[in-house]
């Protein structure tokens, strides 16, 4: 059994530093890894990244993150990534990492992902260049996730995204904004890549549980949804 702790959308700035730390200090007793599902900052500044680093550095388990849309807002995503990596956080974007969890090796593949919507009600790469760019961006992100998952050499694969791969975990959000919350292309990548679990954030008003069309369990761990410092999943529990 692999114990996965996860939270997203923590939106850390100076006013939040220290709030998660008491719960995080208990990670050694309950988890093998902590996944951060994007929107780690408010605006994506280096100063906020420093706060994230302070909050999530030097934990007793490996910390694996993807960035979210907030982390891109100030066009400093590379600098934010550098700060987080400097603090020992593994930041994924179309890439993967393998973590030894006792007898099993956990592979985590991550991308931020993007929107576009879900089967039957999704955007198409048609018309204006801006519309094509929107869809092509998500397609490229999903392709990177497929590659990152399939190239993993491990026992169990987990997909980590910020945007949602399924509409199930968006229940509670206004239907009109679903295309801005995720894309079925991410679910297709998760199914093709042989993941056992998909973890995402972004949908603050959504719900926790969903399943891809291929039967992979999906969990929305956005902080406003789980309303605790992190959730823990026992993957492969008997």
């Amino acid at each position: 059994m692999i114990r996965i702790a996860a939270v997203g959308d923590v939106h850390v700035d100076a006013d939040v530093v220290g709030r998660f730390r008491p719960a995080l200090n208990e990670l050694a007793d309950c988890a093998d890894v902590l996944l951060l599902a994007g929107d780690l900052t408010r605006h994506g500044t280096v100063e906020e990244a420093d706060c994230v680093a302070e909050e999530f550095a030097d934990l007793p388990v490996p910390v694996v993150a993807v960035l979210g849309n907030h982390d891109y807002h100030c066009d400093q995503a590379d600098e934010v990534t550098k700060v987080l990596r400097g603090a020992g956080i593994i930041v994924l974007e179309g890439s993967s990492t393998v973590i030894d969890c006792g007898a099993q090796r956990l592979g985590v593949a991550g991308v931020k992902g993007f929107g576009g919507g879900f089967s039957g009600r999704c955007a198409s790469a048609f018309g204006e260049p801006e519309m094509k760019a929107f869809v092509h961006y998500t397609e490229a992100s999903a392709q990177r996730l497929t590659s990152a998952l399939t190239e993993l050499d491990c026992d169990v694969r987990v997909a980590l995204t910020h945007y949602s791969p399924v509409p199930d975990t968006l229940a509670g959000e206004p239907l009109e904004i679903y295309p801005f919350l995720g894309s079925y292309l991410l679910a297709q990548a998760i199914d093709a890549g042989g993941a056992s679990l998909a973890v995402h954030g972004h949908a603050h008003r959504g719900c926790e549980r969903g399943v891809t069309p291929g039967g992979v369990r999906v969990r929305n761990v956005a902080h406003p949804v789980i309303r605790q410092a992190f959730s823990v999943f026992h993957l492969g529990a008997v």
Partner: protein
Amino acid sequence: MTEEYADAQLQRAIAEDAGIAELGIDIVTRGDCVVLNGHVESAQRRETIERRVTEHLPGYRLVNEIVVLKAEAPGPAEELP
């Protein structure tokens, strides 16, 4: 400005204002009352939103239902066979 345009402008301001950047706050006006709903990470952020809305909609009675999230240790793990 009609009420609908004012609501749209305020919703965008809550998301786009540099000091706020909250995308998950619901703002509903009912008669002379404006109701705020959603979750934020600190009491300071809750107050900033309230101040911004009050500036934008002077004269409205404000009901601030925004919840400051807790970051306590988790409940039992979910078993995924």
